[in-house]
C-alpha cells in the first residue's frame, strides 16, 4: 500500500517532526562525552598501526621525524623486504608454526575440556585444578626447562622445538571446558541413544555446538603464536628457522636499528592476522546470534 499524496495536511508535520530527529544525533552532554571517550580510545588503538604504515613508507633519514605523512613517500622498503629471501622464509615459518599450533590447540584443548566437563571420573577436579594451576607459572620461568628438554631431545632449531610448548594450553582447555558446560547433556545422551561412540559424540555433536568458542580460541592461539617472540628467539639458531618477530628484530646492525624495515615487515605480517580474524570473526558473531534464539 502506498500513501496517497493528498494526505490530510494535519498529519504531515507530526510525521515529519518524528522523522526529522535523526537517531544517531547526540542528545545531551553525557552522550557527547561518551562519544569523545570512544573517539579517543579509537585514535589510541589506530595510532600505532597508522604510525607503522607511515614509517614503512619513509626513507631511513626520516624515520626519527614524528610526522605522520612522509615527506618523500617510498615503497623502497617493501621492495627490499620482499626481495630479501630471509623474510620469505620467516613468513613461511611463522605460518607453519601458527597454523599447526592452532589446529592442535583446537583439537587437544577441546578434547580435554570436553572430557573434564562431561565425564564423571575420580580425580576429575584434581586434574582440572592441576591444569589451571599451570596458568600461574610465567613463561620466563619455563623457558629454561623447555630449552634443556629441547636440547636433550635434539629439538633445538626445529619446528617441533618451537611448537611443542604451545600445542596444548591450559587457557584453551579452561575456555573449552567452560563452553562445553553450556552444551546440554540431553544432546549427548540423545547421541548416545542414537548409537554414536564417545569420540563421535565429541566430534559430531559437541564440537559443532561450540563453534564460536573454537573460533575465539583459533584467533587467540593464532595471534599468540604469530607474534610469539621470546621462546622462538631462544630455541632457534639459524636465520632460516627464525619466525617473523625474531627475524624482524634482527634488521639493522649493532649501531642502528632499521625501523623502516622492521615496520615494513610488521605491516606485511599483519595481513595473515587480519585474514584469520576476518574468517573466524564471522563465526563469533553468528555464535552470538544463535545463542540469542530460544531452544
Amino acid at each position: 500500500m502506498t500513501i496517497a499524496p493528498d494526505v490530510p495536511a494535519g498529519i504531515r508535520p507530526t510525521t515529519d517532526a518524528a522523522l526529522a530527529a535523526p537517531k544517531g544525533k547526540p542528545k545531551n552532554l553525557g552522550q557527547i562525552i561518551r562519544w569523545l571517550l570512544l573517539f579517543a580510545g579509537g585514535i589510541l588503538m589506530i595510532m600505532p598501526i597508522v604510525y607503522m604504515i607511515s614509517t614503512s613508507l619513509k626513507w631511513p633519514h626520516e624515520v626519527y621525524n614524528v610526522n605522520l605523512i612522509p615527506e618523500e613517500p617510498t615503497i623502497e622498503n617493501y621492495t627490499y623486504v620482499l626481495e630479501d629471501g630471509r623474510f620469505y622464509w620467516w613468513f613461511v615459518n611463522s605460518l607453519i608454526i601458527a597454523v599447526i599450533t592452532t589446529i592442535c590447540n583446537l583439537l587437544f584443548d577441546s578434547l580435554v575440556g570436553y572430557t573434564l566437563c562431561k565425564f564423571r571420573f575420580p580425580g576429575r577436579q584434581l586434574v582440572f585444578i592441576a591444569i589451571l594451576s599451570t596458568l600461574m607459572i610465567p613463561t620466563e620461568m619455563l623457558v629454561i626447562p623447555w630449552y634443556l628438554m629441547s636440547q636433550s631431545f635434539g629439538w633445538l632449531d626445529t619446528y617441533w622445538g618451537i611448537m611443542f610448548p604451545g600445542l596444548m594450553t591450559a587457557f584453551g582447555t579452561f575456555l573449552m571446558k567452560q563452553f562445553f558446560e553450556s552444551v546440554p547433556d540431553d544432546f549427548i545422551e540423545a547421541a548416545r541413544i542414537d548409537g554414536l561412540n564417545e569420540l563421535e559424540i565429541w566430534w559430531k555433536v559437541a564440537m559443532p555446538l561450540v563453534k564460536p568458542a573454537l573460533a575465539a580460541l583459533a584467533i587467540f592461539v593464532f595471534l599468540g603464536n604469530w607474534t610469539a617472540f621470546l621462546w622462538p628467539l631462544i630455541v632457534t639458531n639459524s636465520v632460516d628457522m627464525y619466525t617473523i618477530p625474531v627475524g624482524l628484530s634482527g634488521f639493522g646492525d649493532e649501531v642502528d636499528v632499521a625501523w623502516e624495515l622492521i615496520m615494513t615487515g610488521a605491516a606485511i605480517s599483519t595481513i595473515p592476522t587480519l585474514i584469520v580474524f576476518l574468517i573466524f570473526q564471522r563465526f563469533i558473531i553468528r555464535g552470538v546470534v544463535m545463542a540469542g534464539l530460544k531452544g
Partner: protein
Amino acid sequence: MANLALRNLTKAFGNTEVLHGINLEVADGEFIVFVGPSGCGKSTTLRMIAGLEEVTSGEVIIGDKAVNNLEPKERDIAMVFQNYAIYPHMSVKKNIAFGLRSSKLSKEEKEARILEVAGILDMVPLLDRKPNALSGGQRQRVAIGRAMVRDPAVFLFDEPLSNLDAQLRTQMRLEIKKLHQRVGNTIVFVTHDQVEAMTMADRIVIMKDGHIQQIGTPAEVYHQPANAFVAQFIGAPSMNMLPGTLNGKGLKLGAGSSLKTKWKSDSALDVMVGVRPDDLTVGKGDPIVSGKVTVREPLGPETLIYVDTPSGEVIAKASGRTPPELGEKVVLSADPANLHVFDAKTGMAVQ
C-alpha cells in the same frame, strides 16, 4: 516390538537410595505414563530403562532380554527429551536421518523411511530447514521423528510437552496419542502433569518418593485411588479430605453428621474422607459439611466455590449460571457411594 519389565529396580546416588524396588510389567504396544511430583524418581526410572543411568540393583528387561549391561544403543529404544535435543547444526532431514546411522538399511531404504516418517508427522516441507527456523511444536515433532525412524521396541518420552505453551501441548498430546494408535509401539511417557497422564495413558504409574503408589487405568486411579496421595494427585481441583471416624454403625464426619456407608469398622478408626469437588453439590443429597463461601472462581460452565467449614476449606463445583453469593452459608452434600475413605494413619484406602 516387545514388552518391558522392571523387576525390583533400585537406584542409589552414593548412600541415598532414590528408587526403592520398582516392579512393573508393560505389555507389548501399551502406552504407560509415569506421573508424580518432582523428585519422585520417574525420570530416573526412565533413564534407567534407556541405559543413561546405571541400575543399582534389580533388572530392566526389554523383550525377553535383561538389558542392564547393554549400552543405550543396543537396547532397541528411542528417547524424546524435554529440551528436544535436536542438533541445531543439522537440517531437519539430517536430524531424522541421525537415528538411522547404525541401521543396516540401504541408502534408498533409509531415504524412503525418512520420507515416510516425515509424512506421518507432516514435516515433508520442512526437511531442509534448520531447527532454529522451526517453532517449538515443530522441533518437538522433529525429535519424535528421529525416535520414530528407528522403529524401536520401546519409545521413551521424558516430559516432552512441558516446554510448549498450553494450546500446543493439548495439540501435541492428541498427536502423540494418534501416533501411538497408528504405529503401535510400546511407549513409556514421563510427565508431572496429571491431565497428560489421564488423557494419554493406557495405564498410569503414579510415583512418590521413589515408590510406586498405584498402577492402573486412568479410570481406576481416578475412581479407586489406592491411597490418599493418589486421590489428591489425580484430578483437578484436588480431592477434598475431611477428618472422620469409622465405627460399627458407619461413618461419622468430624462436623457431626453421620452417614450410612458400605464401610464399617469394629473398633473406632480415624479416617480421612475424600470427596471430589465434582461430587459435592450445593443442597441436594446427604449433607456432608456446611460453611460460608469465601472465594468464587467462575470457569464458565461451572463455578468453583471455596467453602470455609469446621473441617477446613472445602472446594465444590457449583452452577455456572447461579452460583452462591460470597459469604452465603451453603450446605454441601454428596452421594455416599462417591466418597473415598482412607486410613488417617497409613493413608491407604479402606476397603
